[in-house]
């Protein structure tokens, strides 16, 4: 049994995909010789060589353009955008080109590519290197959106993302890179659109993903242990496609729903999910849906400021307790 970090799960999953299929290529800034700024790609250049593992200049449009063009003619590129914040400099390629070209071409063009990127706060990097941006890509038709919360999910979802014939944005959480897990068999595949119910409970239901799924799970364990409140925790794993079946099952079970989101408040993915739940299951609800999010502000940098900005385990516990007591 091997203990694997989330960080190592990234390079392992890419390596597994590249071994299986020589159409899989990998490109990005500092990914080859340097092994990635987060050391998520160590060993790939050594194993696969510079023809398949390409260090690029700091040219995000060139990186994603190359990935898109190569995928149009049958290759399966994985492109790294170092920080998800940098998606803003190549958002035209993502939102106007990659997302729309299949549709506009009436299905003549297929784009089997993966864009992987380091997302989220926790490193005190300030407002331009810490954002949680998965909801940006959720808002654009034509993109699949993945955000794993643990090492085995990194492997299973990366394998599925590379095998998928559509463009996938793969949001890795920076704060989860050191997370460890015992993984017996690394030959994993998780269907995109298959959420993971991390904990089962009948009193309330949390819908979350990425780092927030881990914090929600921790909060649910505290609620169970100290307050005898049993909370279901759904780790969505993917926003597009969205596992509405799992959401439906858990919402109907407790009728009390919380979303835990790292994105700023307005138009976070939880707003869309709340709207779907209200539209479809209004009569199953015991009270309003509560969204626990980052406030609608850019992220501050200092320890104490950042720590008090994104949802914490304590805030999740307190919000759920408060809501249940109020009810």
């Amino acid at each position, binding site marked *: 049994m091997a203990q694997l970090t989330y960080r190592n799960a990234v390079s392992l999953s890419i390596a597994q995909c590249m071994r299986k299929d020589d159409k899989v*290529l990998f490109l990005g800034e500092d990914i080859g010789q340097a092994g990635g700024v987060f050391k998520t790609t160590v060993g790939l250049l050594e194993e696969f060589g510079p*023809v398949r593992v*390409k260090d*690029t*200049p700091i*040219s995000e*449009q*060139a*990186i*994603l*353009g*190359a*990935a*898109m*063009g*190569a*995928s*149009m*003619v*049958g*290759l399966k*590129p994985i492109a790294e955008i170092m920080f998800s914040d940098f998606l803003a400099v190549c958002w*035209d*390629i993502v939102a*106007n*080109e990659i997302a729309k*070209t*299949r*549709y*506009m*071409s*009436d*299905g*003549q*063009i*297929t784009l*089997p590519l993966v864009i992987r990127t380091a997302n989220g706060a926790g490193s005190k990097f300030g407002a331009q290197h810490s954002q949680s941006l998965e909801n940006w890509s959720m808002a654009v*038709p*034509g993109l699949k959106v993945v955000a794993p919360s643990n090492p085995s999910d990194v492997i299973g979802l990366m394998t599925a993302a590379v095998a998928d*014939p*559509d463009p996938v944005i793969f949001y890795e959480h920076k704060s989860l890179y050191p997370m460890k897990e015992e993984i017996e068999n690394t030959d994993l595949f998780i269907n995109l*659109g298959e959420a993971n119910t991390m904990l089962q409970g009948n009193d309330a239901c949390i819908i979350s993903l990425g780092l927030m799924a881990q914090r929600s799970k921790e909060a649910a364990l505290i609620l169970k242990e100290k307050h005898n409140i049993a909370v279901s925790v759904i780790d969505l794993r993917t926003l*597009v*496609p*969205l*596992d*509405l*079946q799992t959401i439906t099952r858990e919402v109907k079970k407790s009728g009390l729903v919380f979303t835990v989101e790292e994105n700023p408040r307005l138009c976070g993915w939880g707003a869309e999910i709340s709207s779907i739940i209200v539209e479809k299951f209004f009569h199953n609800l015991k009270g309003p849906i509560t969204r626990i999010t980052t406030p609608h502000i850019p992220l501050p940098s200092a320890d104490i400021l950042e720590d008090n900005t994104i949802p914490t385990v304590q805030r999740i516990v307190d919000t759920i307790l408060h809501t249940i007591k109020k009810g």
Partner: protein
Amino acid sequence: MQKINDDIGESIRLKLWDQLLTLRLVEKKAYDLFLENLIKGTSHLALGQEAIGSAFGVVLEKKDYTFCTYRGHAHTLSRGASIEGVLGELMGRECGLMSGKGGSMHLTDVKNGVMGSYAIVGAHLPIANGTAWASQYNNTGAVTTCFFGDGTTNIGAFHEALNLAQIWKLPIVFVCENNLYMEYTPIGDVTAVEHPAADRASSYNMEKIIVDGNDPDEMYRVAKRTVEKARRGEGPSLIEAKTYRHSGHSRADPAKYRPKEEAEDWIKNKDPIKIYRQRMLDFGINESIITSMENDMKEKIEQATKVCKKSSIPSLDLIHKDVWANGGSEWHN
């Protein structure tokens, strides 16, 4: 005129003529169909700029890739796309290349190597690198060509793409069609160098190539040379072809910002179709061949137009088709 030292020859000249006629006469038809209100939306005609696409159309092989801009009807046709496919798409009919889902600015015809027309200035240069990269990786010998306007030379994607193409030695030819105006503004007023593409070539360790983009022979020579270079694996080229559009930037633009004398000079004295008709006569090509090709083309376009007018409007189920590779648009289970 003597035929000695004719490096091009009659058979290539007739191919160029066929290209020029297609590109010119289909664009004219598109203009007429606008006036009949059978084409909606916007459209950017390449009238006057036909020599550039024509030359590459003759030089490129079936396996090669072409990337166009929103002014892309001509380049799409130059690769052999059907006339009814192009006009049908402009008219929003089922017979259109993309069944009416893309429209004038997004013509795509993958089976003929047309990998799309891109309506965000500069976006397609980095993407074109991608097919070139794939050809290099798979060692197919295919060359990618990427056409764009002078305005593109001032956007970041142009510079990112040229740099990457050169450091990776990609089999690609970038072709700047400098028609002197960036939309409504003279390109010289907003550019730090005289030749917006060619003067930047040295920054990317590329040859400075400026060519008369209205002379089909000159265009043919430079297209052949740069495509062959790319095919030999000797890396990318950047061409700046000087040209002029006969009409405005788009359907909405009467082009009043251009001096009358300037426009008249280009249209009367530097029109590629006029230049080439005379050139062919000078090289001894029988006028009856030239004229009968022209008449045949007009007839072909009339026939294609009839097909388009008879073609159904797209079925509404197309709205939800082909967001994903499974053919659908579902975003949840």
